[in-house]
């Protein structure tokens, strides 16, 4: 019952997003969309996915899209023609796809092939073979560790892409002028600075809790990295980019992003050198289950490093570019 209500909300918000012209409003509505999706995942009992969707889809995405839209423009260009041929092609393709799904088994039925192949093996044997109560973590980090390695490399590549496209060299006279502007903001942001200074240590501590508690409850490396990065982003937003760059050096962050991927790969190579296959954790220690625990701990640490560093890199580059363009815009007018 509650599924139908939440899905109806999703459809309403999606229609509103498509019809609106004001891009800032659209980015706020995308925040609501992310939160609704996360609630929907919670009602379907998928807690880890809801966690990741909330932190990435509703938090960081809204933030980055807001920064990007403040730098480009607020309203969409009006349409010039009505694309009727495209609409016709979309209807035909959609109809064929729906006709194709009529053959599939019912959603969630127990004798569907997807539930008979590997899933019973994971559910039955995960506790003996790996010894971790959270089956999602054991599947993600041990049975399917190779896929997770691919995900981490993709995140790292995204960070490198942003660095290659958006990093801008700051001249020293710009730096001193931006510094003076940021210091004069102290009175205006005073209340927020006090409250945020009290909150940031707890957010960092919570990120560490989520990282290491991923074996027993929802959590893991991805979510912990995003929460850690959001604490740093909060600091950088309220205290100014120059202060944040003095606290968190950009080259150290880039170094940590690479260290995460390197750590993950090294665990696999150590397993290779000990005679087993790549990313087989039972080669890491005398007792296979203890080897699994050690392997999962190390690779989750690697994932956490890379995700946190890449999020901070992306935000620093967006903000740095916005600071420079905003400052140049103010100087010209």
């Amino acid at each position: 019952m509650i599924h139908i209500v939440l899905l109806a909300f999703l459809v309403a918000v999606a229609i509103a997003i498509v019809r609106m012209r004001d891009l800032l409003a659209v980015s706020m509505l995308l925040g609501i969309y992310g939160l609704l999706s996360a609630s929907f995942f919670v009602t379907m009992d998928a807690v880890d996915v809801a966690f990741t969707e909330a932190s990435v889809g509703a938090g960081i995405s809204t933030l980055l899209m807001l920064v990007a839209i403040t730098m480009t423009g607020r309203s969409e260009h009006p349409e010039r023609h009505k694309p009727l041929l495209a609409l016709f092609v979309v209807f035909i393709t959609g109809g064929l796809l729906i006709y194709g799904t009529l053959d599939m088994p019912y959603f969630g039925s127990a004798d569907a092939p997807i539930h008979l192949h590997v899933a019973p093996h994971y559910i039955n044997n995960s506790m003996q073979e790996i010894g971790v109560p959270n089956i999602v973590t054991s599947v993600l980090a041990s049975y399917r560790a190779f896929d997770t390695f691919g995900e981490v490399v993709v995140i790292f590549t995204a960070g490198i892409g942003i660095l290659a496209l958006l990093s801008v060299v700051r001249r020293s006279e710009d730096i001193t002028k931006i510094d003076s502007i940021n210091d004069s903001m102290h009175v205006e942001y005073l209340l927020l600075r006090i409250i945020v200074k009290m909150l940031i240590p707890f957010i960092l501590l919570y990120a560490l809790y989520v990282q290491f508690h991923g074996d027993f409850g929802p959590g893991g490396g991805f979510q912990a990295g995003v929460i850690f990065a959001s604490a740093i982003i909060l600091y950088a937003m309220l205290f100014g980019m120059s202060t944040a760059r003095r606290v968190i050096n950009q080259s150290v962050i880039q170094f940590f992003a690479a260290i995460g991927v390197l750590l993950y790969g090294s665990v696999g190579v150590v397993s290779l050198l000990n005679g087993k296959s790549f990313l087989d954790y039972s080669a890491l220690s005398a007792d296979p289950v203890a080897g699994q625990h050690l392997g999962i701990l190390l690779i989750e640490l690697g994932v956490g490093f890379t995700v946190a560093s890449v999020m901070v890199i992306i935000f620093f580059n967006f903000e740095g570019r916005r600071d420079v363009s905003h400052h140049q815009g103010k100087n010209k007018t």
Partner: protein
Amino acid sequence: MSISSAVFLFIGSFLCISGGVGILRFPDFYTRMHAVGVTETLATAMILIGLMLQNPGGLVDLKLFIILLMTLFISPTASHALAKAAMNNDLKPKINKKDDIERVTSSKP
């Protein structure tokens, strides 16, 4: 115990709904923010206290208390930040034509 928990949950739900009615029916942004900011914090506090009185295990009580403490800090600060942003960008409150609009919205930090 469950009677007091039910009482707190009822008060919390009533405050939630009154906040929702407020955001729909009030005439102006600043009045809507007042409705949301006040009722939201108190409704969250009431519902969380009602859940704490249901006597679950040890760690769950602590987590509910942490959520309560965080909401008490975060909700009023967010209202302050939003009102400051609106004021800085010349969003004028809706007042009667008889009052002097320049006197009310003259530059305040």
